[in-house]
């Protein structure tokens, strides 16, 4: 049973479809990159997969015992966060909240997990720093650590490298790859960076307000739509 399945799913807002004809599955340990132009429905799909948005038609099925709380999510940054006084440790620890239910305070195990994830992503020395004073790459690593605190199974990343310089982008990609390989965490990532997507991801989902391609990264590079998108991108 796949971890996550979309069956002829349509997602949109207020009855209007933003992305349709979604028919794909994600297995445990997969690394799926969602690509497509602006407004092709990538972020809408992510909201749908998180069940923050009910499908207008079709269905999203979680399999293999996956619960909604088992998904680690790395959202796009909001403007409010840019001047938010929050410590790195506070942010990472808040990833444990979903598993707390109604219990008000964090347990010792939650705190250990937060510390462990900060170590894994090289954030230990920043633990007491203020989130807003970090560089963009460091901020994304903090959010990644928080996402890892909420799951060991599936990470949903919404444009994690947006606005980062090439070196930091490369570092973040290899970090995500490492998480996928070493920890066996399934990764679904939305990305504008088509070259890195092909380099790192196992499977590609191309959206054009509908599902235009779904298959392995090699197949995608060889396909008509894939080579066009890659070619078009390198001209920019």
């Amino acid at each position, binding site marked *: 049973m796949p971890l996550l399945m979309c069956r002829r799913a349509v997602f949109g807002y207020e009855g209007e479809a933003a992305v349709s004809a979604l028919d794909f599955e994600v297995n445990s340990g997969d690394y799926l990159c969602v690509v497509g132009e602006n407004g092709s429905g990538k972020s809408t799909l992510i909201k749908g997969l998180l069940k923050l948005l009910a499908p207008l038609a079709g269905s999203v099925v979680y399999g293999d015992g996956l619960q909604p709380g088992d998904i680690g999510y790395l959202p796009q940054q*909001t403007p409010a966060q840019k001047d938010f006084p*929050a*410590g790195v440790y506070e942010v990472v620890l808040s990833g444990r909240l979903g598993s707390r239910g109604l219990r008000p305070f964090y347990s010792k195990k939650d705190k250990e997990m937060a510390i462990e994830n900060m170590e894994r992503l090289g954030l230990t020395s920043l633990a007491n720093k203020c989130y807003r004073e970090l560089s963009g790459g460091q901020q994304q690593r903090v959010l990644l650590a928080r996402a890892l605190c909420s799951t060991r199974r599936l990470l949903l990343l919404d444009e994690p490298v947006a606005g980062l310089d090439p070196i930091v982008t490369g570092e973040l990609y290899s970090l995500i790859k490492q998480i996928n390989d070493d920890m066996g965490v399934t990764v679904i990532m939305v990305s504008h960076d088509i070259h890195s997507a092909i380099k790192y991801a196992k499977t590609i989902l191309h959206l054009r307000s509908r599902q235009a391609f779904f298959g392995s990264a090699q197949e995608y590079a060889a396909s008509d739509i894939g080579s066009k998108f890659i070619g078009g991108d390198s001209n920019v």
Partner: protein
Amino acid sequence: MFDFFIEMFSYSFLARAVIVGLLVSLCASLLGVSLVLKRYSMIGDGLSHVGFGALAVATGLNAAPLAVAVPVVVMAAFLLLRLSESSKIKGDAAIALISTSSLAIGVVVISQTTGMNIDVCNYLFGSILAMSHADVALSVALATTVLVVFALFYNKIFAVTFDEQFARATGVRTGIYNMLIAFLTAITIVLGMRMMGALLISSLIIFPALTSMRTCKTFRSVTVCSAIVSVACYFVGVTLSYAAPKGLPTGASVVMVNILAFGAFCLVFLCKKLLVKKRIRAEV
């Protein structure tokens, strides 16, 4: 000095005002951090105007002021929250609409019942004489509830304030916590508004949070710092209002102290920045 405070607290109305005021400013400062960061500051201001309308109607009907104002303002808080969340109606315009409407209703009701007298002035700018014995009991109970609920849900309030999307994705029911924040804010505003005045009460929510954000770097330190700043400013403000030769309106005097605290923290922040710059220049 000691004698001065003994004399001050020998007036029972002053002792009552200080007890309730300290609790309310504590509640307001804790909630304020979340409200300011969520860009909900204007909701606090809007609610105080709704509170004015509710108090005026309660006086007109000869009803207990808190018993009328608390439910009305809580309802208004939910309404304002809904309005600011829906993107179709512009939230800030809706708040302005509701607050001016309540103000107008309040003034009309007062002019038809008790007449435009000293009462209106007291409602708008606050009066230290506002707290009766029954009010104090209710206020202390409600304020304690607000504090306990805030402490229990502190972690969730942080998560919902910092990143609602993420919190929702991991299964936290953010809608409920937004409503909780609005609910607690409404109660705090009603409790504080007769002493601070409808026009001034929102400063208790906004000032301490902004002040402590000048220098503090984590959510916890901002929360603790704004609680301390708020309580200290209230106490100094009340003392000044009592000690001033001609007497000062409590609300205005508390806000003045808050302004000074804000200025002082800004100055500290600037000095820190200059020092860091100097050190970097020295190292280069």
